[in-house]
């Protein structure tokens, strides 16, 4: 029952990624909170979501490009780690989520090739408004099914990996967090470059860091 719920949520959140609304319910921070709450592990959901949000800060759902799919990555990561008390549950869950995010991106590209056969051919007149509506809604349904299948396969594989290898994890929880943040730091660097680069933004960056350190110490 639980895995069916996770699969449906994965499919619905995947729809928000590009096809429906883009209200950013599919961003890792939000998806992590939702799936964590559903699985009775809100703290884990938010932690995994925050970690993947950091990784995917510079991943945008731009039109034709292939991008890692944050929603399925997060649902897979949280559902893989939830319920396991092994020390490796969090890092292994995040690692599986990162891999499945890439697979989700590849599946989106595949669906877009399928959609090209589904939509009305511009050189021939559509058979009417119903033809356009059916093609469009059919593509939406396929995207939901794609997201659900990617989620289901990821959760099944992720849970098996965490169950079999989570106990062998050799780092402390602090060091595990450090390892994951090293990956996230790359995204932060890329984002600074996108926002104007160090030379142009150094004063704002340093002022922000001072504020952040003060906030962390005194709030």
């Amino acid at each position, binding site marked *: 029952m639980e895995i069916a719920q996770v699969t449906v949520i994965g499919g619905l959140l995947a729809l928000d990624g590009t096809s*429906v609304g883009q209200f950013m319910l599919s961003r890792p921070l939000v998806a992590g909170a939702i799936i964590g709450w559903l699985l009775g592990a809100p703290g884990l959901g938010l932690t995994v979501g925050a970690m993947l949000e950091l990784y995917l800060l510079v991943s945008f759902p731009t039109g034709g490009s292939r991008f890692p799919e944050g929603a399925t990555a997060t649902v897979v990561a949280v559902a893989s780690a939830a319920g396991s008390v092994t020390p490796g549950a969090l890092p292994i869950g995040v*690692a599986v989520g990162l891999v499945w995010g890439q697979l989700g991106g590849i599946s989106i590209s595949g669906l877009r090739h399928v959609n090209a056969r589904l939509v009305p051919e511009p050189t021939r007149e559509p058979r009417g408004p119903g033809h356009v509506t059916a093609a469009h809604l059919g593509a939406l349904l396929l*995207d939901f099914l794609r997201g659900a299948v990617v989620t289901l396969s990821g959760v099944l594989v992720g849970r098996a990996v965490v169950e079999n290898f989570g106990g062998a994890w050799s780092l402390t929880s602090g060091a595990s967090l450090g390892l994951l943040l090293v990956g996230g730091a790359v995204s*932060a660097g890329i984002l600074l470059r996108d926002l104007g680069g160090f030379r142009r933004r150094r004063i704002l960056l340093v002022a*922000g860091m*001072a504020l952040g350190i003060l906030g962390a110490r005194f709030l």
Partner: protein
Amino acid sequence: MSRPLSRAALVSSFLRSFLIQGSWNYHTMLGCGFAFALLPGLRRLYGAEAEDMASSLSRHVELFNAHPYLSGVALGAVLRLERDGADPEMVRRFKLAVRGPLGSLGDALVWATWLPTVSVLALSLFWLGAPTWLAVGAFLVIYNVGHVALRLWGFRVGLAEGRDVGRRLAEAHFSAWTNRLRAAGALLLGVLVGVILAADGGLAAAGILWVSLSVVAFLAGLWVGHRAWRPAAATVVAAVVVLTAAGLVL
């Protein structure tokens, strides 16, 4: 031939614009979604004139692309042009002319600036220990106020200006807004870095090794840019695999 566009048809077209990317494909890109969003307006304009409707639809399922939040500019303008009985070739040229600017303006403002800036704000709240509802709620509310406002503005501008939307797009000073937001984003990114370093259970608590590696990773991202993302993610996955294997063996 044409009748005035009803409020219901306009509202329906606007709401359908939220689904405009539903059939995104490598052949016509947003073409089918654009026609799908136009349908309520076209039904109102052409009613039972099946031939005119089919002719209009065949024009609008053609290749089209734009940032989804700004696609309303083109939708509104095309509805206005169709209502005014504009020459089909002119409507086609209009769509061709706006698709580049609507894509690049939206990508720079929304994907490369607004989204990461609001994300960084929400992540800072998370690392400061704010409750879940505050971090997630702040992200969703702030982001979507900007998102929905931009969609509404674009649709209204398109309807009001028709083929002259270029002037309003220029007057909106997208570049200036993007630059201001980037400055705010850089400040917030600094806040996030500071909070992650100094928070209880943050990076500093993990030890000097992880702080040093994070600095190196940050500089790699800063210098190499987007080319660094996939190797970095692959390195973290590989590190997890190797450390797990080491735990099994030792």
